[in-house]
Structure formats: structure tokens, C-alpha cells
């Protein structure tokens, strides 16, 4: 025991010293490089605007992002080189590995800020520390493209009622996005619905029956291992995705993080306290009692979950595509297309709608901030402005004309061989071309928006998506009378617009008590929900009552009130 600690201590010290040295040298670099341009920018903004050759002078920004980007090549890819050529900017990027919230907290506390910061919800820590600049004037003076992009939405960029500065250029929220791809809902293997003659899959009862019937016909796979009815992914935060979020999707509640908000009165409820959701968990409890729920659901780790899916033995999932994709990809690579998954808009009863595609409207929030340590904020905003231009967006999304796409009869198309590499050799393709590297730093339009040439800004469009389906998938979709999975889901237009966007994206003031209470509530929920699901059906009510009592004890009403105040503030801020 002691030995380990000593060694880890030495390793840690070495890492710290190395980090310190690296940090110091990095800082010096920036200072050197930043020294000359900052002089010009401070003199006057018009000076740097008029002298265009000077604005292209090579400049290096340090960049921090909460999202990982494992294939990052330091902008030495095709798209990156063009961006550098057009703006003179290179990025010295750091992407969070492991827990991003913790990493952001450390950076915010260190007092040494990267030049550009993309910190999602953690941005409040930087704002509290006074680490980021107000961009209102910079946008006004130097960023015509950003102004055009955010036209009519500018008030949504502001931070809060008390502080109406713009700290963040939103790069995650797409403007006028029409979803084309269904990624959520409940999933069933194609072979299940095919064998059962494409039964209607609309309620949890339908879903359960399909699994039950198929299991009765095929209890084991070809190797004699038992097939698994339904497995859940409950490893750490995946708990939200696969276990708790579906509770509101199936009961008509919108995704507002851990809360349910009445769209008219803006009354906030911790969503587990809704009686409808109790019934959802009762159904999961019933699935467990019937032996249809995988016993390993709450014990398995994420990698084991994916590996299990890759065996093809799991008939049903309740998860998002990106969360189980690796497993399904393995199945597709082996040519087991009938063990791939389709998405179904399953709800508790037929008169509730699956709320997966309840629109949020344009949501500011996640995006890039410019720190006070940035040597040249004008160049930084111009860099973002270039990315937001039509040229920039097409470059980031499609790549380079003639190389990654071509124009046939006025339409942008991706040549077949390029598309093949994009799908089948995704990692190397991304490393070489840089397509996919810069999206999260680009303020941009969403799917379905057309540029001045009448082409889509993004590469995702219905035709492209249908082309990506395999034959089995097409067959199943045809049997359900749909072209893409999203056709099965309720449309965006069927829902009332929420004037606050979505509650999970409202920044919480750093010292708010609600952070602590909500974490306590999370601890209780994550303990009680698995307990309730795995309990004997006759004990379910007892555990649920105890759970509700724990929530009360942890001050759930106070958290609700604090959230409600935040939501109301956001509505006031946005509707000004």
C-alpha cells in the first residue's frame, strides 16, 4: 500500500513539474507571439481592419474545449490549413480528457486562462472569475457574419438579467435546425420486428410484447447463449441517457434536465415526482420481474454494455444512438444487419407523444468565449466571424471543393469514393481532411438551411441519410411506411415552443445553493431508482414512498423554487 502511494506520489510530482514547465513555456510563447499584434489592436480597431495584410499575420491562440477531439491534428489537416491561410490563426488546442467539469474548474481556479474557452455550462466559473470578455461591442464592430447569423436572436446571447453581457459565441446550438435523424426513442433489433410481421410498436406494452414473443421463439442464439430482452446502460452519467431521461420522453414531458417545467405556468417540478413517471419505473420493475430486463443492467460498465450489444444478443435498448453506436457498428462490420436497431417512438400510453423532438428554439449557451488573457480579441472575433461566414461554414462542413465535394449541376455532392472513406475509414478520413474537427468551434446554421447557392449548409439531408441505410433497415422502414426513422416520431411543429429554450442550458450562478441540493437529489435518485426497478413488484410502492421522502428531506422543493426563478429570469431575458 505504502509503496504504491510513494510511486504514485513521485509520478504525480513529475507530472506536476512537467505540467508547470509546460505551462510556463506555453505562456511565454503566447506572450512573444501576442506582443506585436496586441500593440496594433489596442491602438485602434479601424487600423487593423484597414491593413488587411497585417491581419493575416500568423497568430497562435491557445484554445480549451470541454469536448474531446481525439483525432485533432493541430490544424495540419486540409480544412485547418485553409482556415489558417484565410485568417492567419493557428490554434494550440487542449481538449478535456476524463471529467471535463473538473478540468474546467481547475483551469478557472488557476488564474491562467487559455485565449479561447469553450466550456459549456462551466462557463459560469469563468464568468465568476472575471476571466472572459464581454463581446457585445466586438461583435458589433468586427463581426458582420455573426450578426447576420444571430439576427433576431441577439438577446438570447446575453448572460443573465443582472449581467447582460455577451460572453459566449454559441457554436453548439444550430440555427434553424430541422432534425433529420432520429437518434433516440426505444430501439428494437430489425430481426425482432421482421420475424413478428412488423407489429405496431407504439406503447411500452407493444415493446414488451415484441421482446417477449421473440424470446419465446428464440430463447438462445446460435451458440447457445441466452438472448437478452432489454438491457440498460447505467454506468455513471449514462444513467441519465438510458434510465432516467426516457421517463419523461415516454410520459409527455420535455427534456429540461432533471426538471419538468409546465410550458404555460413555468411551474417547476423535479421530474421524478410526477406520478406518470412512477408508472414508467413500475413498468421497468415489471420487466425485471418478468425476466425481460438484463440482470446486469445496473452492474455492468459502459464497455461491457457495448460489448454485449456487439454480440447481437440484445433485442431491445432504451438509449441514444451515439451511446450504443460502437456496439452496433461492430455488428454491421460483421454483416449482421438484421441485428441492428430501429428507433420507435414508444410512450406509456397511446395518447401521449414521444417528446424526443420537442424543439428548443435557438439556444445560446454552449460555445466559445474569449478570455481576458487573449492577446488580440479583435483577431479572435474575426476568426470566429470567418468560420461563421458562408465560406467558412461550407469549408467546415463539406471540406474543400474539388477535393472533398464537387458541384454537379449547381448542387454540392460528395463523390462516392470520398463518402465511402468517410463512413468506413472515419478516423483517418477525419485526421486527413479535418472535416468534423471544427464544427464545435463554428457558429453555424443547422440541417435543412440553404446557402446563397441554394445548397444545404450541412452534409446531412434526407437523401444523404437514406443513402446511408443498409437494405435491412430500408426494408423495415418501408414496412412501417416511413423513409427515415424520424418519420415515425411526432414532428417538432406538434409541440408548443418553450420560451426558455431548455432548462439544462441555463447557467447557474456559481454560489447558488441549488447546485448542492441538486447533487444530493441526484445521489438519492441514482440509488433509489435502481433499487425500485430491481425490487419485488409488491415492494415497489414502499420503496417509491421512501424515495419521495428522501427527496423531501433533501429539500427538493427548494431546488424547484430556485430553478423556477432561473427559468423565469431566462424567459424575461429572452423575450425582451
Amino acid at each position, binding site marked *: *500500500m*505504502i*509503496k*504504491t*502511494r510513494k510511486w504514485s506520489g513521485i509520478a504525480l*510530482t513529475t507530472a506536476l513539474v512537467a505540467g508547470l514547465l509546460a505551462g510556463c513555456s506555453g505562456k511565454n510563447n503566447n506572450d512573444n507571439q501576442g506582443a506585436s499584434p496586441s500593440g496594433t489592436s489596442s491602438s485602434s480597431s479601424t487600423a487593423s481592419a484597414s491593413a488587411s495584410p497585417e491581419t493575416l499575420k500568423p497568430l497562435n491562440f491557445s484554445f480549451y474545449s470541454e469536448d474531446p477531439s481525439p483525432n485533432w491534428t493541430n490544424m495540419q489537416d486540409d480544412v485547418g490549413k485553409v482556415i489558417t491561410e484565410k485568417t492567419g490563426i493557428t490554434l494550440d488546442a487542449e481538449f478535456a480528457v476524463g*471529467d471535463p*467539469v*473538473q478540468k474546467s*474548474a*481547475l483551469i*478557472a*481556479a*488557476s*488564474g491562467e486562462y487559455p485565449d479561447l474557452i469553450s466550456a459549456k455550462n462551466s462557463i459560469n*466559473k469563468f464568468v*465568476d*472569475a*472575471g*476571466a472572459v470578455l464581454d463581446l457585445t461591442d466586438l461583435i458589433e464592430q468586427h463581426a458582420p457574419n455573426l450578426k447576420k447569423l444571430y439576427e433576431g436572436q441577439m438577446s438570447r446571447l446575453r448572460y443573465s438579467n443582472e449581467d447582460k453581457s455577451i460572453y459566449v459565441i454559441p457554436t453548439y446550438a444550430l440555427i434553424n435546425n430541422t432534425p433529420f435523424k432520429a437518434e433516440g426513442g426505444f430501439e428494437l433489433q430489425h430481426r425482432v420486428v421482421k420475424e413478428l410481421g412488423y407489429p405496431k410498436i407504439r406503447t411500452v406494452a407493444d415493446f414488451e410484447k415484441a421482446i417477449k414473443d421473440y424470446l419465446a421463439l428464440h430463447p438462445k442464439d446460435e451458440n447457445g447463449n441466452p438472448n437478452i430482452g432489454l438491457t440498460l446502460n*447505467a*454506468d455513471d452519467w449514462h*444513467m441519465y441517457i438510458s434510465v432516467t431521461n426516457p421517463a419523461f420522453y415516454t410520459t409527455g414531458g420535455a427534456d429540461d434536465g432533471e426538471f419538468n417545467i409546465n410550458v404555460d405556468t413555468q411551474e417547476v417540478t423535479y421530474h421524478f415526482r410526477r406520478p406518470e413517471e412512477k408508472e414508467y419505473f413500475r413498468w421497468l420493475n415489471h420487466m425485471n420481474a418478468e425476466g425481460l430486463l438484463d*440482470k*446486469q443492467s*445496473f*452492474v*455492468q*460498465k459502459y*464497455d*461491457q454494455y457495448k460489448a454485449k450489444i456487439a454480440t447481437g444478443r440484445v433485442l431491445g435498448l432504451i438509449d441514444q444512438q451515439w451511446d450504443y453506436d460502437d456496439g452496433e457498428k461492430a455488428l454491421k462490420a460483421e454483416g449482421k444487419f438484421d441485428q441492428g436497431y430501429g428507433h420507435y417512438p414508444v410512450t406509456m400510453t397511446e395518447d401521449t407523444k414521444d417528446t424526443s423532438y420537442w424543439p428548443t428554439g435557438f439556444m445560446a449557451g454552449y460555445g466559445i468565449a474569449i478570455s481576458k488573457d487573449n492577446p488580440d480579441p479583435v483577431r479572435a472575433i474575426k476568426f470566429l466571424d470567418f468560420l461563421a461566414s458562408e465560406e467558412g461554414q461550407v469549408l467546415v462542413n463539406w471540406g474543400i471543393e474539388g477535393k472533398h465535394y464537387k458541384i454537379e449541376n449547381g448542387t454540392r455532392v460528395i463523390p462516392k469514393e470520398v463518402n465511402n472513406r468517410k463512413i468506413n475509414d472515419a478516423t483517418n478520413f477525419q485526421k486527413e481532411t479535418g472535416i468534423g474537427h471544427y464544427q464545435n468551434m463554428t457558429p453555424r446554421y443547422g440541417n435543412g438551411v440553404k446557402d446563397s447557392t441554394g445548397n444545404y449548409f450541412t452534409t446531412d439531408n434526407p437523401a444523404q441519410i437514406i443513402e446511408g441505410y443498409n437494405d435491412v433497415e430500408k426494408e423495415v422502414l418501408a414496412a412501417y411506411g416511413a423513409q427515415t426513422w424520424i418519420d415515425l416520431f411526432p414532428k417538432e411543429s406538434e409541440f408548443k415552443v418553450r420560451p426558455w429554450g431548455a432548462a439544462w442550458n441555463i447557467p447557474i450562478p*456559481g*454560489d447558488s445553493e441549488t*447546485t*448542492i441540493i441538486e*447533487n*444530493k437529489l441526484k*445521489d438519492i435518485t*441514482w*440509488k433509489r*431508482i*435502481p*433499487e425500485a426497478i*430491481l425490487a419485488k413488484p409488491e415492494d415497489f410502492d414502499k420503496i417509491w414512498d421512501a424515495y419521495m421522502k428522501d427527496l423531501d428531506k433533501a429539500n427538493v422543493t427548494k431546488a424547484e423554487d430556485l430553478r423556477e426563478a432561473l427559468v423565469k429570469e431566462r424567459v424575461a431575458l429572452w423575450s425582451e
Partner: protein
Amino acid sequence: MKAVAAPLTNKEKPRKSRFWTTFIRNKYLYMMSLPFVIWVFIFSYYPLWGWTMAFQKYKPGKSFGEQKWVGLEHFRYLFNDDTFYLVLRNTLAMSFMGIIAGFAIPIIFAIMLNEIRHMAFKRFAQTVSYLPHFVSWVVVAGIVTKLLSAENGAVNEFLMWLGIISEPIQFMAKGEWFWGIVTVSDVWKETGWNTIIYLAAIAGIGPELYEAAKVDGASRLRQIWHITLPGIRTTIIILLIMSIGHLISIGFEKQFLLGNNLVGDYSKVLDLYSLEYGLQMSRYSFGTAINMFNSVVSLILLFSANGLFKKFTKESIM
């Protein structure tokens, strides 16, 4: 310098002058140690200044003078939090189990290895036993969960083959077994490694002692009892005192990796609590308060263990 200049006949300051004479004589040694003294100061003592944060409502980006002082508020919150007592219980329980198992087993193992006469086999056994030390906890956690899995897990299969159980047991879902699982995995991973230091200590025992014992007709067991064990007593006590000092700071890596939501009540430990409720929420001050508590308790434990051993066994590290 003055002390040296003072006449040696001065009976008042013989101690002092003796110190300075030694100092001058060993000046190069002192100079050589200076960098390390500075190093220790910078890395171990200077950061203690940060403890002031525990009494502030610390906000990054503000200078020391601008921080708001809140006195003992964070400690009051800490000692009123039920979760704190839960994680403290888990930490201490796993710590004690770890110390008991992590002490007895390596010592027994070292003695057994020492008794093996076949050198090649001894080396082989030693190497194999300490290899797991180099495997990261991520991998070990994966192996443990696989072994204990209710679905084709080796342990369950074996127990069912023996006929002891008729249905697979969900080992990882039973909170009350969690401490045991952590301890056993730790023993598997670290026994070999911890054995090395005892083997080294045993190697230092003079062979003439054993020869004399043999002449007196002592059996193998008698030799172990009267020569080997007393021979490594100092090592055992020093290591024991040091690990008692670390009792409360056991890290959270293995508990975090082996745990899941079903066993949360038994798997959450103090370090994880300070991470979740401190750093992750930017409550730097609260995090500091927890760590202060940690350090103070460790210090008390260390000194009392040291004192007790000094009194009863005349062995100590200070």
C-alpha cells in the same frame, strides 16, 4: 561565525559551539541537502498557506485581500452533512480491512517464500505474485467485475459446479459485500509487491543466527518464530505506523471503478466526496475544509500510533 570565534573555555555555550563546529566540518553536506530542504518547503509547506481558503468563501480570480472570510462555516456544513458520516464510515471500514489484510498476508507470504529452498521456483513465484501491481485499477476492476459477473462469471460458474449455489449470485449488486470485494482485490493486486520489502528485511538477518538455532535443535517453525519474525519486527512496525497515518486518505480509484449505483451507500469514500461536492462544484473552500480535516486526522493518527509503539515496543519512526 561568532560562536566559533568565542573562546572554547566559555562553559556557558559548549553545546552551541559544538553545533557550529560540526556545522563547519560538514558544511558541504549541509549545502548538498539545501536544495531538498527548499524543495520540501515549496511543495509541502508553502501549499499549507492555501488552507486559509477553508475559512473564506473563495472565488478564483480575486486577490487574497478581496476574498470574503466566513470563519468556520464550511466546517459547520461538513459536520452537519449526513453524507459526510456515511463516506467517513466507508473510508474507515475499507481502510481498516485493507490494513489488516494488507499487513498479515504479505508478511506470511514473505516468510513462506523465504522458506522455499528451490531458488528457481522462489524467483518465479515472487515475480508472478508482484506482476498484478503493475496492472492499472481500471483493468483490475474490469477483471473483477467479469469474474464476479452473474452472467458466465468464473466464480459463479465454479460455485454452481460445486453445487454450493443453484443460482448465480449478483456479487457486484450486494452493498454489504462491497468492502470485502475491494479488500480482496487489493490483496490480489498488492500482496506480491508489499512482500518485497519484507523479503529484503529477511535477507538482512544474519545466517549465523539460523545456524546457531539449528545446532540447538530448533525446528523450522521455531526458527521462524524466534529469528525471522523478530528480525523483521522493526520493518513491520515502521510500515504499520506509516499506513495508520494514511488511514483516512485511501484515494477513491478502486472504489470508484468497482462501485455502481446499487452499492453507492458502501462505495462512496471521503476523497470522492471532496471531489464531487468540492472541486466539481467549484466549492474550493469546502474542498479545502475536507482536506484540512483529512490532514489533521492523519496527523493525530500518526502521532498517536507512533507514541503507542514507542511506549510499548520501543520502536518508532520519530
